[in-house]
């Protein structure tokens, strides 16, 4: 079964540093997403991406964050100047264009900011 692949599985970074979280969506999917889950809290939508541009973003997704599809297969989330409160599990997901298909989530990247 096709999978969404995220790397790394765990990243530790110092406060103020920039991190890039990487995702390889399912190859025939056209919509891409990032969600995050702070420990003990619910999964929150960050951003959706379609046709090489952001289609929707949450109020969490401020100037500190950016997304990119640098080539035909990768989808990245960049977090600039990380803060302690950015520590969370970050999930990438992708979906097919027909709206009745559900998402496929990756297994997540646990980001720890120290």
């Amino acid at each position: 079964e096709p999978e969404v692949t995220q790397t790394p599985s765990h990243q530790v970074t110092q406060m103020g540093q920039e991190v890039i979280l990487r995702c390889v969506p399912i190859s025939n999917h056209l919509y891409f997403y990032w969600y995050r889950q702070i420990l003990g809290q619910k999964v929150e939508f960050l951003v959706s991406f379609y046709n090489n541009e952001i289609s929707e973003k949450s109020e969490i997704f401020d100037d500190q964050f950016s997304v990119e599809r640098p080539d035909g297969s990768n989808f990245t989330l960049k977090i600039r100047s990380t803060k302690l409160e950015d520590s969370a599990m970050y999930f990438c997901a992708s979906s097919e264009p027909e709206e009745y298909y559900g998402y496929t989530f990756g297994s997540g990247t646990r980001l720890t900011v120290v």
Partner: protein
Amino acid sequence: AQSVTQLDSQVPVFEEAPVELRCNYSSSVSVYLFWYVQYPNQGLQLLLKYLSGSTLVKGINGFEAEFNKSQTSFHLRKPSVHISDTAEYFCAVRRGSNYKLTFGKGTLLTVNP
């Protein structure tokens, strides 16, 4: 705006007992409803989804859910749980015209021997 309420943060049950995890949503438009499961240290796996048609939806691992439009609920059930069902369960809703998923806070199901 839509919201999802999972009424129970934790549900402990004994093995082979039935279980129901409750989910209520609020939305003024048509919605699609999902249940995801998260096993310890793993990602989110789709259990089942309601898109249209029959209000009783069957998913993987013997789980099923019933969509009740009048009560705006989408409760998850399993007639007999196994220890391996221990996990966090998330209800999620998506508006028909929007691809964003809104999640509930999750219910931790703990199955004891």
